[in-house]
């Protein structure tokens, strides 16, 4: 998160970012109280969040600048977090638990396209796992393409932005969302790495085929 904030300082004022920093500082797991009610239990270490609140409500809550004044956090051990979820949701526990990466992506995606990003420097992105694209609301073919590139080998965000002229904001958005959701990590190195491409037989013909296939799919 510090690297992300260094490159995109405009994110500093987003309530979700501030809350995220507080969550990370709170330890393995945390219970979040909004006013006097429990809003959710989260275990960052294991990558889940349990909440009875629906996504639109969480989105609305975390887009309100004053929300942070009404939130208190209670640090828990992983065992205490499990117990808290069980006590709170009982037999519904299974349905109330969501993957933290998917939820974080959906919450942060609401910043865009209103938020324009102006990177201060570059990032080398490497995907640890693909975002759960089929369950995410705001993704497009470019996200899939960028993910495929970053899953293979670390990619320079700046180099990727150059590859897609006119779509730089989408590339920056992808970098922010994958890093914030934990799907990607920043790897060391300042210089742009070449983008990998598999050696393919009948390259030109096959490239044309890929394009027609992708057009057909999306």
């Amino acid at each position: 998160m510090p690297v992300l904030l260094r490159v995109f300082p405009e994110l500093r004022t987003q309530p979700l970012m501030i809350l995220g920093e507080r969550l990370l500082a709170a330890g393995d797991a945390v219970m979040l109280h909004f006013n006097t009610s429990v809003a959710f239990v989260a275990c960052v270490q294991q990558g889940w969040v349990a909440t009875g609140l629906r996504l639109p409500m969480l989105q609305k809550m975390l887009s309100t600048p004053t929300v942070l004044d009404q939130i208190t956090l209670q640090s828990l051990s992983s065992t205490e977090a499990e117990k808290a979820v069980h006590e709170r949701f009982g037999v519904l526990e299974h349905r109330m638990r969501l993957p933290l990466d998917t939820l974080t992506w959906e919450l942060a995606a609401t910043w865009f396209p209103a938020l324009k990003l102006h990177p201060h420097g570059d990032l080398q992105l490497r995907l640890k796992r693909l975002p759960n694209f089929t369950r995410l609301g705001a993704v497009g073919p470019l996200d899939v393409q960028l993910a495929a590139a970053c899953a293979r080998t670390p990619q320079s965000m700046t180099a990727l932005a150059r590859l897609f002229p006119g779509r730089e904001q989408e590339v920056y958005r992808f970098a922010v969302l994958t890093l914030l959701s934990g799907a990607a990590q920043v790897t060391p190195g300042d210089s742009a790495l070449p983008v990998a491409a598999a050696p393919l037989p009948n390259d030109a013909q096959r490239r044309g085929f890929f394009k027609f296939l992708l057009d057909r799919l999306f």
Partner: protein
Amino acid sequence: MAVYKLVFAGPVGAGKTTAVQALSDIEVVSTESVATDETRRLKRTTTVAMDYGVMRLDNGDQVHLYGTPGQKRFDFMWEILAENALGLVLLLKGDAADPVADLRTYVNEFRSFIDQTGLVVGITHAEAAGWQVRQQVAREMQSLGLPSAVMEADPRSRAHMATLVGTLIHGLDPVRAGAPG
């Protein structure tokens, strides 16, 4: 006109036949047979040789879609169907006893093919599975030295299947695959 091939594999009941149906432009040719062995506990009929569908592209090219039989005793078909294919779409049943073990089985069987082409994994029946299955499968893919191209997917959804296949295609050639012209 060029003809390309995509293979859908996975255990019994993962949704391979449905996935091929979701993408095919023709009525899928299916070799379903009444299940007679332990498969019967999972579903009434099962694919015994292959499922076959076709996607027709605007430039005249065709993508032939093959669903492999899920039962291990028909595994001789796996290699035949995978020959010269573009890559593998592996569907894992999220609520199976051990989806990670299923992943290992299929990666092991198709390893040389995957290394030469590409792999994308769809976790089906995800609602009945735990939130953690996708992350467990992703970690196992990493430990097997594969890009963690895994996501939850409903085989009945054309959009989900398109995202899986699109991911596979971009994985073969991440930048140029989607390049204009």
